[in-house]
């Protein structure tokens, strides 16, 4: 049994099956991302008044790394161009050229993902510290302080674990349930509780200097820390720079990295970009498969491979398009 129109187009529709299929699939993808973009709008419009981080639920502006985001946009657009050139090379009957362009496309895809992970990590190590008096600051932990803290904490944990292992070995002989070992801390996802466990009394921070971009013209930047020292408002530091500050944990309400649970903006930012990232990964794997394992099909059924590349290319353009909407919406607006 042969399924008709798998390779040759059907005369009255002018399309082969997979092309109809991919367009339908993309229609459903439009609805998927459309729903997420609509959610973004609804959540943002419905966000309570006031500005992040002073109001925990306000909408944070301009926290993403725009130069890197712009670069990544360019990477993805480049890959969209080369995927077309790869397809054109196949149309022209040149498999070697196809392979070259396709490999370039896949390299772009993985660069995009690599850069995105770097950005994610940036967020995971960036913190908002909320004070009991209702104010808040954002920033990083001072490098030296952090490493001192981590060394001490992890040494203590290692010692504790050594003890636990011994106890567990004993428990095993007696048939009791073993206790869970403590995991190492890193500079990601730290919380007030984790500092508390190590009996730290204060943390040393590099507080972000509120820049004009972060707080739209005419908006007063939120008060920083105890608000008493003028220098903390950025007189000595460049906008976008940092100043040092010792924060007493007794005054602190919470410490949280820029992760989804910290604010609804991060929740939707991470959800949308991660879902997009999965699409990039999926697309890259398929395109890479054609580049590295397409030769056999090229010799047996060249037209079929060309169609497949065309269909995968359509998907790739879609993934690109989603990013072209995502970038301005989450980075710029």
């Amino acid at each position: 049994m042969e399924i008709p129109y798998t390779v040759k187009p059907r005369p009255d529709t002018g399309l082969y099956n997979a092309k109809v299929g991919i367009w339908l699939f993309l229609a459903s993808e439009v609805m998927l991302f459309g729903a997420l973009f609509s959610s973004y709008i609804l959540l943002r419009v419905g966000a309570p008044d006031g500005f992040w981080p002073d109001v925990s639920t306000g909408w944070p502006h301009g926290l993403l790394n725009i130069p890197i985001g712009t670069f990544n946009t360019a990477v993805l657009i480049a890959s969209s161009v080369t995927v077309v050139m790869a397809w054109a090379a196949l149309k022209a009957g040149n498999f070697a050229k196809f392979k070259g362009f396709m490999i370039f496309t896949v390299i772009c895809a993985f660069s995009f993902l690599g850069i995105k992970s770097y950005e994610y990590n940036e967020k995971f190590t960036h913190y908002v510290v909320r004070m009991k008096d209702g104010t808040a600051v954002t920033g990083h932990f001072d490098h030296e302080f952090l490493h001192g803290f981590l060394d001490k904490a992890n040494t203590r944990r290692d010692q504790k674990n050594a003890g636990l292992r011994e106890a567990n070995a004993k428990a095993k002989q007696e048939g009791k349930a073993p206790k869970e070992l403590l995991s190492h801390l890193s500079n990601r996802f730290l919380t007030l509780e984790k500092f508390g466990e190590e009996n730290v009394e204060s943390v040393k921070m590099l507080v972000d200097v509120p820049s004009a971009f972060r707080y739209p013209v005419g908006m007063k930047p939120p008060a920083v820390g105890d608000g008493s020292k003028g220098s903390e408002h950025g007189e000595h530091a460049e906008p976008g720079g940092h100043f040092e500050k010792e924060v007493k944990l007794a005054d602190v309400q919470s410490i949280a990295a820029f992760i989804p649970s910290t604010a609804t903006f991060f929740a939707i930012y991470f959800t949308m970009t991660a879902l997009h990232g999965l699409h990039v990964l999926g697309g890259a794997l398929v395109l890479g498969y054609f580049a590295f394992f397409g030769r056999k099909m090229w010799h047996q059924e060249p037209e079929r491979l060309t169609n497949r590349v065309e269909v995968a290319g359509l998907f790739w353009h879609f993934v690109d398009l989603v990013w072209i909407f995502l970038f301005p919406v989450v980075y710029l607006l």
Partner: protein
Amino acid sequence: MNTSTAHAPAHSTASAHGADHGHHEHHEPGFWQKYIFSTDHKVIGIQYAVTSLLFLLFGFLLMMAMRWQLAYPGKPIPVIGHALQAALGDDMANNGVMQADLYNVFGAMHGTIMVFLAIVPILFGAFGNYVTPLQIGAPDMAFPRLNMASYHLYFLGGIVMLASFFIPGGAAKSGWTSYSPLATINDPVHVINGQTLWLIGMVLLITSSLLGAVNFITTIIQMRAKGMTWMRLPFFVWAQFVTAFLLLLAFPPLEAAGIMQLVDNLLKTSFFLPSGLVVNGQQLAVSGGGSPLLWQHLFWFLAHPEVYVLILPAMGIVSEVIANNTRKPLWGYKSLVYATLSIGFLAFIVWAHHMYLTGMGTRISTFFQTTTMMISIPSVIILTALFISLWGGSIRFNTPMLFALAFLPMFGIGGLTGLPLGFNASDIILHDSYYVIAHFHYVVAPGTIFGVFAGLYFWYPKATGRMMNETLGKIHFAGSLLFMNMIFAPMFIQGLHGMSRRMYDGGSTYFGSGVGLDQHILNLNISITHAAAGLGFFQLFFIFNFFSSLVWGKRVTSDNPWQATTLDWQTPTPPPHGNFTTEPVAFRGPYEYSVPGAKTDFTPQNQAG
């Protein structure tokens, strides 16, 4: 065109295939290839049919247990009560008595299973798969392997849903609608809880439906036989076509919502959690700033189109059966098609009529009230056309036709009682009462399920080469019709008297507290439960008939035992891999019954001249 004289070669093929299945040029595939990893649309259709019928039974049994609790609150459930306690724990079924949590679990899972694992898969997965390629004259679906993947994903989704009953904390218990924040906060003890598995199961089911929808639409666009123009498609195919579009475009927003709720539950985000939410007297430790209404919008954006997914294919089945058994063309074929297309379009702009009580504001309510009234027009057109089709026909009252005929008034009741729910003034009173339960069950139970039965009795001989027993079928029909009405009609009365849905004691707390409702309204719970048991009893006739006919059923003497016109009947019985022995060509419309001057009272679509 000799092959087109439908029954000439039929006798030989029908009997030949009894002895020698799957007669084709390749070597005989093994068991796994043939029944589990088959890419043949007919095998996949049957896989869907068997699985979804089992889920239908399971969903019904969940409801039987709930009905016991409604009729006799606080009494141990007979037969299975102690088994439930052993399997699900004391919190769920202490001493065999259904606890509030278990009622919530069963209620949510009854809805979920019935909609996503029983009715949609049987209409779309089973009938759609088996019949659509045959009716358009295609050798198979456009993407056979994708088709197999759809079924496997559906199966996996079903397993996840079933498994969720047995994890600590039990299955999802926030209704089939899974409204946030309830769905996020109701089991804080377990990180991976019933709701988590519900969401994972839904993502699998949604993916399955999306692949299916892509496959169906592509198949209908690309694989129509020569001469099978759009206006020669049987109405069944049109119904499947529009259904596929509804699934394709309405499901992704729910998938997005499901992902967000999953993230809310696992990563403690606040997509659907408002600021300052207080649970058990304590402010919830989340960032807040989310919107519970967002979930409702995304959910109903799917769930309203979904109700048309639950009904359109049933209308398609009923139309085929009616045309065949009145021996007349369908009245107003074109209006049926255009009405279906209009429903497909309007279905996307009525969703918020489920949300009149959320305080959307009068303007938005008015908009959705208007679109809701508009969408009732094409539904009425379809029903009217089918009623008129009966006029002047010499009707054959076989079992499929009886079910198809009963479908019409039952769906009529369901549809008409929906109008007061579509007006926001009256919905404010009726919302969340048993009136709603009665309304939509008239649509999906005596409506859709009767359509399903009509289809099962109708295509059974094509799939198996044997007829189902008519006497048993008629008993099944009579019992089902009687008890369906005895179950659901009284619920209208209960609802009008203010009885709320989702109450695990059937409202006895309210009645007992002297709010002034009559005891006889409460007593209806008992008669409804008895009727549900009666309904269950009469399904035994169907189950017995279904299996025994495989062995003892009367063998068909022709490939076209109902003397039908559409291409599905112009194939060998059962159709081999690849379906048609010669390439089918359509020369005429789908319903050329009783054409004046023709030799027989039916002229198959592939008959030339």
